[in-house]
């Protein structure tokens, strides 16, 4: 069973969101998502400084099986991207919640954050999707 830590928020499209408490969040993909994708070989990250809306396609993760879009779970401005992934995309497989983070975001609408799922709801969502 995949690891779904408490204390994080989750989106239906399998991103996790960590509230940094200062109006910014860190975003990555869940352990469940990386398991489904298989070995990642390339990550195309958004550009720091770009303004994005919730639901925008802003990154692509490419595994040996497929290239998949990453959707921004929230609206805001991209603050930083995880440059490590350019050379070590496998960090997402090895450490989806720590080393494999994708980008940080300064959010513009806190209510969007509240609308996301908690760990239990996401676990159920992921199970439902499989059936």
């Amino acid at each position, binding site marked *: 069973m995949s690891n779904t830590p408490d204390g994080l928020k989750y989106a239906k499209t399998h991103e996790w969101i960590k509230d940094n408490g200062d109006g910014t969040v860190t975003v990555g993909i869940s352990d469940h998502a990386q398991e489904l994708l298989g070995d990642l070989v*390339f990550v195309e990250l958004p550009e720091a400084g770009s303004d994005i809306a919730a639901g925008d396609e802003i990154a692509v993760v490419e595994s*040996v*099986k497929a290239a998949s*879009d990453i959707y921004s779970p929230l609206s805001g401005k991209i603050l930083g991207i995880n440059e490590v992934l350019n050379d070590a995309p496998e960090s997402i497989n090895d450490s989806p919640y720590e080393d494999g983070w994708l980008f940080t975001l300064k959010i513009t609408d806190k209510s969007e954050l509240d609308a996301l799922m908690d760990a239990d709801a996401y676990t159920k969502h992921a199970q439902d999707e499989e059936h």
Partner: protein
Amino acid sequence: MPFIPHTEEDVNRMLSSIGVDSIESLFDEIPEDLKCGDLDAIPAGMSEMEITVLMHQRAAADGQPDCFIGAGAYDHHIPAAVWELATRGEFYTAYTPYQAEASQGTLQLLYEYQSMMTALTGMDVSNASLYDGASAAAESILMAVRANRKSKSRRVLLPRSLHPAYRKTVQTIVQHQKIDLIELPFDTTSGKTDLDALDNYSGDDITALVIPQPNFFGALEDVDALTNWAMSNGAISIAVVNPLALSILKPPGEWGDEGVDICCGEGQPLGIPLSSGGPYLGFMCCRQQHVRQMPGRIIGATEDLDGKRGYSLTLQAREQHIRRSKATSNICTNQGLMVTAATIYMALLGGEGMAHTAAAAHANTGKLVEKLCSIDGVDTLFSSPVFHERVLKINASPKNVLRSLAAHNLLGGYDLGAEYPELGDAILVCATEKRTEQQIESFRDKLDRIMNRQAKCPVTPKFDQP
């Protein structure tokens, strides 16, 4: 195994199992007005005997004229071994076989093709081919727009000296992609892209610059200056090149200070017959850093479980069978059979053989131009050095002159009037390595007679009257 394995009985059983009356009803959701209905323009079948007669008639209509037309497709010598080998059963398929376990020979050939193309262009990576040169140019522009994430304008500079058919194809393919194509004029003295006109865009947000080499007029562009301009203005540089010319010219990977980003072109000069305009072969190469944005297939070398070398399709995660509408391209048809011929052609000639061929074509065109310009009323139009084509200004109607030459079984060049009316009465001529001294001499004599006759004729020919 039959190609379509379903018998009528199979089909009926499947239809009844899903509770549908006919195959047509599966397409109900397509609006009636979008269906093409009966294809009335396609005639009924013919017997083998009838088709043989028809094909003999068609072949006879082609004749065996002396060909002095280039304009994007070139009459080069093709060693007999090329198609003897390419049409062997082991290779004779129009598509890339996907299954590595069944197609090691074809995959190895494609891998070698890619290696040869990167050597020829001086680029890091080649794909396994595209449809043709014109669509490769369009695909390169789409790729540049994807790859240049710093640029937001989607404005692409397209020289007027690029092949007119390529410009039209590019227009057709990118027009609904919110890409703004801006035409760059050519200098009317040199025939090359006007660098002053280019400088008007310095400092603007330009996504990509297309650089033809040689350009449609045969002229050699200032590729170093153009490539450096693109680099210093944050634009992706796209070379559109004749692959044979690269055996004697500086490869695009070495243009300017850092080489171009993308290089594409038409592979027809590499062992593919003219055959009424196709099938041909598009090629595309790029820098390593852009490889994820490259459309099409790439064959990679790897090792199997026993440590033996093997080949397989790689970097296909962004192709249409996986990414559907989000694929890097949905028209990345692989011209497998043409690639096979081109690879055999390049392997047979080698770098040295290709350089000899290119140099012979260059020399022949030089001789041709010299001979033709000895005629009163014929002169070169542009001053730049050329590869194997040149624009001639003639003091007569190109249409009439070319028609008269054709009546003498000679294709005397390409009439530039329709595409470049600003050039006046001008034709584009080409003499590949196949043209003999005698053919060149005969062209001169015929053109001389025709020009003289037309100059002396007091009556305007009927077809010229408004």
